[in-house]
Structures are given as structure tokens and as C-alpha cells.
């Protein structure tokens, strides 16, 4: 796909999303405020009741910064509301339109997905600038302009990985009557095992060891740790490479499913 077409699709999707501006801001503001309230109350209580100064290698301000940052990066990685569009295209027959285009369907969808995250990226940056300074200084994080810069490619590859991971469950729509529950299931699993609900250092050692062999930590924990300055340059470079490798694997996995599904597809009205 040519870059100009890719960016054109990105822009179209962004414009479409911004046509419901009130929805866009309400969703973000309420989610951020609720998350801040819960995060602060929960960790304040845990630190007070356990009497510990460090939990899983984090002090109170550090874990709050993690919570805010993982919330902001997580929104971008998950890419808004596009998770069900592939299945919807299959169900309502709009896939037929894409099959006639001279571009491969997943690339068009990916361009739309990127368009969908651009406003989120801007919003998250804005909210991060407001929220992070309010949390106070932590001895367990080291946020710097360099760490924030390094976080941007980490978030983008994590987003690519999440998109490719979501693709195969969506293709099941060629066979199943409804795959919404599969997408939600994927979300539950990735949120917990990817570190979106809790830093993975809080998990028991044996589970942490197992999670290192799985792609989930690259989705949420990795970009967050990079942004918080907890990942060195070499580790960051390795992390990006692993994430791209997992993306490649997920992409390859989706190809045979697409091919088989495509053979079964009957467009509405055709």
C-alpha cells in the first residue's frame, strides 16, 4: 500500500471519529477521573495497611504513575472502538466492497485503526501532562524527555501487535454467528497478563517467568515501563524486536484463517 493512500485512510478515520466530539471527551474524562480515584484509593489503602514502603519494586507514587501511564498507553494500544469492525464487515456484507478494492483488506483496516488512535494519542498526551505532575516524585521511576520519546515507537509496535492478535478472533466471524464475546475475552486476558490491571512484578515469580515467554507484556507493560524510564536502551531495542517478531507470528497465523474464511464468505445481496 502506498504511503499517501495509507495516510489518506488514516485521516478519513480520524475525521469520522472527531464528528462525535462530545462522546470523545466525555468517555476520556470520566474514564481518567474514575481511574485516578480508584488507583489513588486502592494503592493508598494497600500501602497503609501493609505498612510496606515498596511493593513489587514500586513506591506509592511510582505505582500511581504506572497506573496512570498504563491507562493512557493502553487506550492507544487497544485502538478505540475498531475491534468489532472486521466481524461487522463480514456480518453485514460490507466486506464485499473491500474485496473489490485493489488493496489487501487487513492493510486497509490497519490504516483505519491508526486513524482511530491519532485523537487518542493527542488526548493521552494532554491528559498525561496534566495527571503525571500531580502524582508527586517517585524514587522508583525516572521519566525524562528521552524515555517519553522512546515510548512512542514502543506504543506503536504494541498497537500493531494488538491489532494482529485481534484479527484472528475476528475472522472466526466467517464461521460463528457472533464473535463479540471472543474480542471481549481477548481483552480480559491481555489486560491481566499484559500488565494493564497490575504491574507484572506483583505477580508470583513463577508466573512472571512464564509471562516472559508470551507476547502479552509487550502490549501494556513494556511501553509503560519505557515511558517511566525503567528500561535501558539495549533492553528497549530488544523489546521492540520481540514485539515485531510476535506481530509477524500473529500476522502469519491470521493468513490461513482469512483464506479459509474468504472461501466461505457470501456477501449480502450478491
Amino acid at each position, binding site marked *: 500500500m502506498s504511503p499517501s493512500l495509507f495516510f489518506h485512510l488514516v485521516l478519513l478515520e480520524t475525521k469520522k471519529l472527531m464528528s462525535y466530539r462530545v462522546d470523545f471527551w466525555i468517555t476520556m474524562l470520566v474514564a481518567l477521573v*474514575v481511574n485516578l480515584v480508584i488507583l489513588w484509593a486502592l494503592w493508598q489503602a*494497600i500501602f497503609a495497611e501493609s505498612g*510496606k514502603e515498596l511493593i513489587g519494586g514500586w513506591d506509592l507514587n511510582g505505582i500511581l504513575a504506572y497506573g496512570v501511564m498504563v491507562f493512557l498507553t493502553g487506550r492507544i494500544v487497544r485502538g478505540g472502538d475498531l475491534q468489532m469492525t472486521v466481524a461487522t464487515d463480514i456480518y453485514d456484507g460490507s466486506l464485499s466492497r473491500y474485496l473489490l478494492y485493489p488493496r489487501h483488506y487487513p492493510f486497509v483496516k490497519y490504516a483505519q485503526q491508526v486513524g482511530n488512535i491519532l485523537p487518542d494519542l493527542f488526548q493521552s498526551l494532554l491528559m498525561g501532562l496534566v495527571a503525571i505532575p500531580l502524582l508527586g516524585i517517585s524514587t522508583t521511576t525516572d521519566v525524562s524527555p528521552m524515555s517519553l520519546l522512546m515510548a512512542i515507537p514502543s506504543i506503536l509496535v504494541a498497537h500493531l501487535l494488538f491489532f494482529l492478535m485481534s484479527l484472528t478472533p475476528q475472522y472466526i466471524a466467517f464461521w460463528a*454467528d457472533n464473535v463479540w464475546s471472543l474480542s471481549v*475475552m481477548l481483552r480480559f486476558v491481555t489486560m491481566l497478563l499484559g500488565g494493564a490491571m497490575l504491574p507484572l512484578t506483583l505477580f508470583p515469580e513463577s508466573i512472571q517467568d512464564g509471562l516472559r515467554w508470551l507476547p502479552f507484556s509487550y502490549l501494556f507493560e513494556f511501553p509503560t515501563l519505557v515511558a517511566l524510564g525503567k528500561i535501558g536502551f539495549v533492553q528497549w531495542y530488544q523489546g521492540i524486536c520481540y514485539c515485531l517478531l510476535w506481530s509477524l507470528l500473529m500476522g502469519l497465523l491470521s493468513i490461513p484463517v482469512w483464506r479459509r474464511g474468504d472461501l466461505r464468505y457470501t456477501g449480502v445481496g450478491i
Partner: protein
Amino acid sequence: MIRYLRLYLQFLKFSFSRSLEYRMDFWFRIVMDCMFYLVQLVFFTILYQHTDLLGGWNYDQILIFVSGFLVIDAIHMTVFSNNMWWIPILVNKGDLDYYVVRPVSSLFFLSLRDFAANSFLNLLIASGILCWSILRYPEELGTSNLIWFLFLLINGAFLHYVLQMYFQIPVFWTHTNRGLITAFFSATKLMERPDKIYPIWTRRILMTVFPTLLVIALPSRILFEGPDPWLIFWVLGVTACSFLGMRAFWNLGLRHYSSASS
């Protein structure tokens, strides 16, 4: 009343036969909800690896609290969730006409007509988890505590529905309430944590203005600390006021409803 009960039985029959037509979705949804239950239990189990108490509750108590919340979620998914999904669509397409002209309450009909039979199995699973967490509780839980807890649990499920309706009804004016509904689901996360972790002012807001703590946190407190008449009166009073307010809001919305075909 009998007429409404008979009507509800018809809804149940129809929902069960329809859900069995989509068997794959039936099983997917069951697995999805089980995954949700597992994630919630694992989340608190990991937290309790690092502390003995949270909001004054130990691990055995938090298990009952979480299981109670899972039961409420399952009731919501079974009884109300599908219906909530349809309300904005019916309003925007003008299909509400068919329900407004029927000789039964439109609020009753639209809130209860679609019973999610697949989620009903999850309700049984969630109830099983609750029974297990109560049976493994090491101390004696009084019978009256238990009865009040179960009663307030059902009340909590009803209150959850009422609160969601406040976020649904604006669709009569706004035409899209997607942002509001997402905001509602974000806000309900507040009820998934013990009440005592919140500072006093937040707790007051969450017991009056947006009473999410009355859904499961306070019923759990009544189970562990015994029935406090004032607290029970408060929970039931706020639920009744919220329901009456919601019904008035619904009627106001209906008055503003202009059918798409007119």
C-alpha cells in the same frame, strides 16, 4: 401484576428458544463470563499477596465481596444487558412506536423483554462461586446477616439497572449515547472495590449522588458487621428514590420522543 408475570414468562420462553439457535455464541458467552470471573478473582488474589487487609477486609471477606459483585454482574447480563443495548437503537430508528402503543408499561417491556439465556448459566456459576466463598469463610455468619445480604444483593442488581438507565435515557435528546454508556461502565468500576478504601467525601458522593457503593459494598458490610437498620433504610431509600427519579426521567424522555416515521 399477574398479567405482567405472565408476560415475563412469555419473554423467558421466547429468549430460551432463540438463544439455542445460536449455539456457538451461546458457548462463547459462557466462556467469556467465566474468564471475567477468573480475572477478577486472580486480581484480588495477587493484591492479597502483598497485604493482609484491604479497606479493613481480609482475603476471605474480599472473596465474598467479589463473588457478590460477580452475581450482580451476572444478573445484569442475564436480565437487563441485552435490553439496554437495544434501547438507543429503537429510539433512533423510531421502532419505539411499537412498544409505546402496547397496553403495558413501555419501561417494563423494554427493560425485560430479552432474557439472556446463555448468561443464565453464568448466573448459576457466579452463584456457585458465591456459595463457595461463603462456605469457606472461617467465621460464623449470622442467618439474619445472610438473609439481609442476599436481599440487598438483589436490590443492588436492581439499583445497577436503574443507574444505567440514567445514562441510557438521554438518547431521546442526544441521538447517540455511546459516550455516556462508556462513561457509565467506567464509573461502575468504583463499585468493584471495598467502600472503606475511599476517602470520606468520595464515599459520601458514592452513597448519594452516584450510589454505586450501595450495590455490593454496603450489603457486604452488613453481612460481616451485622444488619444496621439505618444503613438498610439508607440503601433501600436511595434505591426507591433513584427508581422514582428514573421513571420520571423516562416519561420525560417519552414526551420528547418523535417517531422517525412521523
